[in-house]
């Protein structure tokens, strides 16, 4: 009978210890689960937003370049000076738009500047690091523009969303 009592009391202590361990681990797992889900989800959302912002910036720049080409081929003043002035006007008009300002803020930019390489009578515009439009102003006035590269830009190759990574409970 005494042996039974010892076993019972010993087991009771084990049970109490197990309950304490269970509650302690429960809190730890709960905190870990909440933290991991929050951080992993945020990391993925940040990555996705980065792609969306990059595409948004690309689209606005792409549109600005087409607008510049269109305005140049239609412009009455075909001088190089008028072209340079037009670039500034387009960039300023873009910045003056409240919606565009909001977008720039989201992208972490203060302004949207076209990437233009200037030579004496040539202006080459690059988009996403690649030259896409070349203007020729031989003799000081507009002669020709080559926008084949701009036309063949394929955004599907540049902007894709990766699938989320497999969930890792121990990721910190």
């Amino acid at each position, binding site marked *: 009978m005494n042996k039974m009592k010892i*076993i019972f009391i010993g087991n009771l202590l084990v049970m109490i210890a197990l309950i304490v361990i269970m509650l302690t681990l429960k809190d730890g797992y709960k905190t870990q*689960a909440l933290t991991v*889900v929050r951080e992993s989800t945020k990391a*993925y959302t940040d990555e996705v937003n980065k*792609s969306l912002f990059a595409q948004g910036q690309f689209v606005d720049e792409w*549109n600005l370049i087409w607008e510049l080409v269109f305005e140049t081929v239609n412009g009455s003043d075909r001088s190089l000076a008028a072209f340079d002035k037009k670039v500034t006007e387009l960039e300023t008009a873009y910045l003056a738009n409240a919606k565009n300002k909001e977008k720039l803020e989201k992208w972490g930019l203060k302004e949207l500047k076209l990437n233009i390489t200037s030579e004496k009578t040539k202006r080459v515009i690059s988009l996403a690091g690649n030259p896409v439009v070349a203007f020729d102003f031989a003799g000081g006035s507009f002669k020709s*523009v080559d926008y084949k590269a701009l036309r063949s830009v394929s955004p599907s190759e540049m902007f894709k969303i990766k699938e989320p990574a497999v969930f890792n409970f121990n990721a910190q």
Partner: protein
Amino acid sequence: MNFKKLTILSIVMSVALLVTVFLQKGSYVSQAKEAYDKSTKKTFSNASYVIGAVNGVIEKNSLLWEIACDAAQQAKTSKDFALIEKRKDTGKILLSPDTKTDKETGYLTRKVAWSGDYYIIASFNKKNNALVGINVDALLGRVEEDTSNGFSDEDLQSSEESSEE
């Protein structure tokens, strides 16, 4: 005898508690995985849709831009414009052009579009079919919600009739 049963019962409970201690982590991992999967899959699906749709708009709008820029340099008449339009639309993505008479200017307008939202409008002088200008406002998002766009309700037939007069 009763005490013996109580002792056995308490041992069984201890074993059950031990099993619970080991299993509870699995339950949290599974709940966390479910929450992560649900949230990220929704983000993935929404963002993929947006990225895909915008990529599609860029690819199709670039055709409209090309037609507008080519026509501005090379087209003298509505026939030239239509030729450029036909030659460039190799993928046959453009809708049938919508031709009307602009009530305000009296010009014959040709709306070239691939959707209701994205289009260019070329204007021609009715007398000699000369290209007067190309409106690219829809490509620049400068069209107001009111989609009348300055068009009259006259259709091509009525515009042809008036040109014959």
